[in-house]
């Protein structure tokens, strides 16, 4: 099982310290394994309950509204939101967890919708950019983006707005450095970062 090359590299353990020895592992492992065995006995039946690969009922709760869809398991959350729920604020750009144009919130956390399967996100509270200006209530992030002209072609912008909202929710008093770290998951090709940073900083100072 052990790779020969790895073993050869490793050599003898010469330390007296616990972080090198790993004492007591076996005990805990057994404890967990026992729990697992118990669970196994209870759930043997459920194990065979895998669903089919055919299109099936999928219910997504987006912006408080339930969307009843028929989707194959392989449909991404992004495709479902854009193509089936017709909420096109989030965009498809990279499909490789890099650009952030598809950012939505799931249970309040910013997430790349391209990295999720729609079928796996049932029962979650999904929030898209559309919710940030729904029902006559406009999230302060939106006018602040406009004020600092944090948009040019605008294609990356909704994803950036959602990321900014999610970020500020968790870091309401963020510094510029924190903003630059937190919002590094969104790409803009036109180069609107300066406006985004100013916007986030202003909202953080105002305690948004």
């Amino acid at each position, binding site marked *: 099982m052990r790779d020969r090359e790895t073993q050869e590299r490793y050599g003898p353990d010469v330390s007296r310290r616990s972080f090198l020895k790993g004492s007591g592992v076996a005990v805990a492992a057994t404890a967990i394994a026992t729990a697992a065995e118990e669970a196994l006995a209870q759930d043997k039946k459920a194990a065979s309950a895998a669903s089919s690969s055919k299109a099936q009922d999928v219910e997504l709760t987006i912006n408080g509204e339930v969307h009843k869809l028929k989707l194959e398991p392989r449909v991404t959350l992004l495709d479902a939101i854009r193509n089936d729920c017709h909420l*096109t604020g989030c965009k498809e750009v990279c499909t490789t967890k890099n650009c952030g144009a598809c950012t939505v919130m799931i249970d309040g956390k910013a997430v790349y919708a391209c990295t999720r399967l729609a079928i796996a996100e049932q029962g979650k509270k999904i929030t898209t950019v559309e919710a940030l200006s729904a029902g006559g209530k406009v999230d302060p992030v939106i006018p602040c983006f406009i004020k600092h002209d944090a*948009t040019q072609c605008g294609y990356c912008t909704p994803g950036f707005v959602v990321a900014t909202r999610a970020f500020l929710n968790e870091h309401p008093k963020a510094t510029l450095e924190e903003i630059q770290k937190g919002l590094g998951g969104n790409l803009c090709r*036109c180069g609107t970062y300066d406006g985004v940073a100013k916007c986030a900083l202003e909202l953080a100072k105002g305690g948004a």
Partner: protein
Amino acid sequence: MAEERKFGWGPRKDNVLIGKSIQRIDGFEKVSGKAQYTADINTPGTLYAKLLTCTHAHAKLKKLDVEPAKKIPGVRAVYIFPAGDLKAEGAGEIFWDGTLIAAVAADRPEIAEDGVKAIIAEYEVLDHIVDEEDLKAAEAKGATKAVGKNAKGKVEDALKTAKHVHKGYYGVHTISHMCLEPHGTHCEWKADEVLDIHASTQNVSGLAGQFAGPLGIDAAKVLVTANFEGGGFGSKFAADEWGIAAAKMAKETGKPVKLMLDRATELKAAGTRPSGYIDVTLGADETGKIVAWDSHHWGSGGISGGSIPVGGIPYVFDFENRSRTATQLNCNVGPTRAWRAPPHPQLCILTHCAIDDLAMKMGKDSYDVFLTNLEQTAGTAAHLPETYKAEMEIAAKLIGWKEKWHPHGKDAGKGAVKRGLGMALHTWGGGAGGCACNVKIHADGSVESFVGSQDIGTGTRTVIAITLAETFGLPLTAIKVNLGSNQYPASAASGGSITVGGVSGAHRRAAQTALWKIFDLVAAKYKVDAGTLAAKEGSIVSGDKKVCTWKQASMLLGPMGLETKGEGPAEDGLTSSRVGGVQMADVSVDSETGIVRINKYVAVQDCGLIIDELTAKSQIYGAVIMGIAYALSEERVMDKKTGRYINADLQNYKLPRIGDIGEIVVNIYQPDSEYSRGVIGLGEPPVISPGAAISNAVANALGVRVPVVPLTPQRVLAALSKSKGGAA
């Protein structure tokens, strides 16, 4: 009698809106996600199309069987591109990775994907050449072509007598446009054979004909809409073969078809900026004045040309004794398209890095060497030396050049991190593009304009609204701007920084024409001298006296209101062309990891009369950031072994993010002399200098030139290692 009625901008001090920082009027749509881009159009029944592309750099297609795709339930149409059409004349030869072979349209995107996978394509793989830098290897393969040579003065003699001579090699790799909204269209056939197209385009007025020809229909039956467009940067002027494919599949199926390029195909097939490399020798006299330039540059724009032309080298400057030669490499790489300020960014790198190294050799401050040679920029435009001089002073002050500058490689910092300053200059024509517009003043006083232009992120709508509102003395909210349709008066494509000049000039003319008619009507009705009238704050005034409200004046037009046309450009002073621009970079370089970070970046830019300072500054911020991208991280990596564009994804095609840009300081150089020049476009010029300015700053930090851009850790460390006598 008051002043003669001539088109023109008002006195600068009187402007209420023009020149101020005004939020873009379509900001809410864009920021809230309500803006509908082509990729967002999903009319009922829309089919989704996916592409089969060839992943060989050079091959012969031997077999293509699309029947298996057609058998998949949900697949509605399969289209074969010319490269996949084995029946055609000269068929089957593929010249670059990413060549489009077939498209599949299906009820759902995932089914279209299944269809693509079911297609059987067989190739005979042929020899390829994808190394754009290796001139000798390309020559050996017969893949080069001389594209120009010219000389003036006595170069050899001047180099012999020059006090300082520097010989250098510089380069810049190919990059992709990487539009975040990929190229693509949504095509739907309506009644009477009308083709309704949403296109991600910079060329709303110019697309109908491009679709009509290949489809064999009248251009009059093609509707083109682009209300919003997710980035073009020079690459979205054509209908493109994938546009034709969507239209044909829509016709075949009787359903709307949406075909947007996938990310890899967007990078490979939808436009790149050509590479450039140069061997150059230049010489200066004892004052630092450059007296001789001798260069040979080469690069590739793809298999059939499009490389950097011979003109333009040396960039901005021209020298008394100058010889230049250009060679094109025909490589198996995707074709080039215009990329923001073509090909100035490359020219700037190839020239201004050499000048900076000459300064290093002379032991002089780069600033002084650029300054000494400014008189040699007058060949482009007489006013440039003076503009550059003023801008250099401003930029130097903003970045602290005098306090921070140190000789190249000396006193750059104690530890591993070295700090340096660099600068570069640029120029661009810009000006006003062709534009026709209609301005409608309704009897209720509301104002509307119609123009077949587009907003590619530059703020076209806002510029039009400001122009009209300023002219009519109305608030911005009183203006409705209609653009993005070829059903409106034709306007030039948005390229070459000509849109703001084009639309503002034409709308000012239309608005002034309308206003003069209104003044005449008001003058007659209220018995005042029309020559004394002005439109201000929602009223028509005569001197300090309010004559009537705008609404009352509009009612004089009768129930049909008034419609005026505006055209341009014209020689009436509303617009002009040719700008300069100076940029300076303050960078830190980690000499142990090769990482370069921007501390501060200063961009000083002239551009005539500014309509909206907020969106104008955004253009400069954006251009600098794009510049930081190609200076430090982004490049197309062609794998020599497979011939493939191996980093055609956003993971390995590295673009800067919010933390990668340092502090950017934008300064618009706008004395009254600039205001009086009229409007000049701004999209391109500020993207030109960053490559050279940042490279020069790195050279200043290290005392070693990293010759090829982007300045990745690999190249920085290689240059350092070479300078210490190690392997390159």
